[in-house]
């Protein structure tokens, strides 16, 4: 068993090693052949190989010293307009001296850039096209402003098909000398839903227990790795214990740093799984939607989400009343 992060160890190094996203890989290979790359948007859910594809493309294009020709920026960490003005511009305008006349800027999680920064980026892209090409990686291309989208070749990444996912994890397990049972593999797919990074992290965390990986192990890992036990919080609220529910919410936000938008998305998903009368589900969805909107407008995530919890307490109370009457 090796003691580094497996998700990195098994990250493909070249486009040839990329087993999935075949059509995309073929097009990227043709860029390498032509030694020309347009500005690109790699859009798709997490763990589907966007960053990997960008890195592989760069390595194939520039060779082993590819790091000298690229710059990786993470918009989640550096999302402001100043970064575009300073860092991006400085990198973009200096001509590279290799065989390939341009450098590549990889902007990861680009959908987290502010609108201002995107506007600034648009001008930078235009001005320095000669010396620098941009690859924007994003979960949602819709959050990238139109003018940038129209300047980029779009690539849509999708979740790995089940067979590819299984093949990959089995290969890693074998290589690391880990016993991965079929039911364990099923459970990983169920929990991670094709997000390969999460799947590999789950596998490694499960392997750290030093026993055969079955479904039970996987579920316990997933439960512990995901502190946002939103379902539990909803259940507490529906039982009428608002104060406890708010405490759990507070813990998620403060201790584990879970984003309010993530929590509300999960609440929305969970609502339709609740054991409540069907018409109520849509009523609750409406309430969630309203708070989701206020979350965007408001100043404080906990305040907004706890207002939602109070509505859940109220709804559950009304439901109990209506079933009694019947």
């Amino acid at each position, binding site marked *: 068993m090796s*003691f*580094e992060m497996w998700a990195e160890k098994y990250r493909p190094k070249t486009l040839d090693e990329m087993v999935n996203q075949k059509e995309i890989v073929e097009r990227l290979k043709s860029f390498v052949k032509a030694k020309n790359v347009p500005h690109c948007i790699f859009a798709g859910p997490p763990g589907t190989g966007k960053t990997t594809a960008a890195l592989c493309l760069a390595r194939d294009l520039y060779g082993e010293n590819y790091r000298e020709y690229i710059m990786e920026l*993470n918009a*989640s960490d550096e999302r402001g307009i100043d970064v575009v003005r300073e860092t991006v511009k400085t990198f973009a305008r200096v001509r590279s001296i290799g065989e390939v006349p341009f450098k590549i800027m990889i902007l*990861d999680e680009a959908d987290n850039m502010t609108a201002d920064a995107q506007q600034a980026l648009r001008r930078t892209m235009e001005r320095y096209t000669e010396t620098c090409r941009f690859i924007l990686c994003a979960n949602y291309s819709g959050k990238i402003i139109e003018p940038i989208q129209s300047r980029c070749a779009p690539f849509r990444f999708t979740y790995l098909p089940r067979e590819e996912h299984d093949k990959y994890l089995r290969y890693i397990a074998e290589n690391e000398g880990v016993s991965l049972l079929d039911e364990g593999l099923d459970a990983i797919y169920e929990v991670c839903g094709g997000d390969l990074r999460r799947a590999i992290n789950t596998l490694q965390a499960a392997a750290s227990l030093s026993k055969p990986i079955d479904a039970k192990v996987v579920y316990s890992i997933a439960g*512990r790795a995901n502190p946002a036990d939103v379902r539990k919080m909803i259940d507490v609220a529906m039982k009428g214990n*608002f*104060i406890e529910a708010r405490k759990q919410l507070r813990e998620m936000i*403060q201790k584990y740093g879970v984003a309010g938008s993530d929590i509300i998305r999960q609440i929305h998903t969970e609502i339709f799984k609740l054991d409540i009368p069907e018409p109520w589900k849509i009523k609750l969805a409406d309430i969630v939607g309203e708070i989701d909107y206020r979350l965007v407008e408001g100043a404080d995530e906990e305040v907004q989400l706890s207002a939602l919890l109070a509505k859940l307490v109220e709804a559950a109370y009304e439901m109990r009343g209506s079933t009694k009457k019947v």
Partner: protein
Amino acid sequence: MYQPWTVKYKPKSLKEVVGNKEAIQKFVDWVKSWNEGIPEKRAAFIYGPPGVGKTVTVEALANDFKMELVEKNASDYRTEEAVKRFAGLASQYGSLFGTRRIILFDELDGLTGTADKGGVKAMVDVIKTAQCPIVLIANNAFDPRFAVLRSYCLLIEFKKPSVTEVLKHLKAICLKEGIDAEENALKFIAQRSEGDIRSAVTDLQALAQGKKRLTYDDVSWLGFRDRQENIFTVLRMILYGKTCDGAKRAVNMADVDVDMLFEWIYENVPNHFTDPHDLARAMDALSMADVYRGRIKRTQDWGFIRYVIDYMTAGVAMARVNTKTSGWTPFHFPERIQALSKSKEERSIQLEIGKKIKRKCHISATRASKEILPYLRIIFKNNVEMAAGIAKWLDLTPEMVEYVAESKEKAAAINKLLG
């Protein structure tokens, strides 16, 4: 001619000062000790709530002891230089005319932040070499700004006088003004003043001047003074408010800012609105108040603050439809405020670890701390060797290892492997 009774009936002698007999005695003893040479503490720091007679005591003492009182207010000693100008005065015990001197720095609370920092420092220097008694007065002597200053001073606390003591003072004034006052009318005024003699006398003058008789009915309608009510009173007015106006007025009485008041309300609403409908309505009002806070942030237009206040006070008060107001429910300090400082620290180490992960894993530090850190936690808990390998690979510091491992023993084992 109109003359405030607070001035007209200001004690001329220590004998007339209301209450605080022990504190006054302590002060007198200290001043007297100067006759036998310079005492260990060359300054006295008198502190206590407003209107309890701190300044009056010093003035009365100077009068009784025939000392020259040099008095300075906050506005006079804003800077180091201004204070140093008094250094000369302070360096001699007696004045030109042979009388002894006492120097008073009043209203020290008025010193603001950094602008007056030099002032406090210079004051310490003056005290160190003072040849005559120096008196400092403030409401709160334990303000961190006065930490150094305090160590050079004899601390004397002035407390609120009792209702009986205030009442006695009011009676004496009525006698001199020839007012026939009902006992419970004066008692009402004394009680409402909460030990603030100055405000009690001001109230008495407003209600009784020019009258022959003062009855309970004359005073009972007395409106609220815009005194800064303590937070519990304010919360009660909001959480149990019957009218919008009443709830809204509470904001002006709070001695905390709107954001902090919001925290108090947000913390305490659930305990005081037990009916699910009321609770949902009250929380909804807070949610809307927060939306307006967001709008202020975005537009930088502080005019929207009035809607924040509407929702968080009147909105919350009007949410009460079913919940009975019976029984006594305690108020809690906003837990979030306590937790915030701790979680700030936590967030910062999380982010530092996130940055380490970012360097290796092509993922933003923010996301790394959310998506990868939880897995590391599991690994660090279960597999010391793998943890050590990863810690080395990521180049984590021992503190980071301890944070991830969530246990000192585990961290020690991992750090040992790292050598």
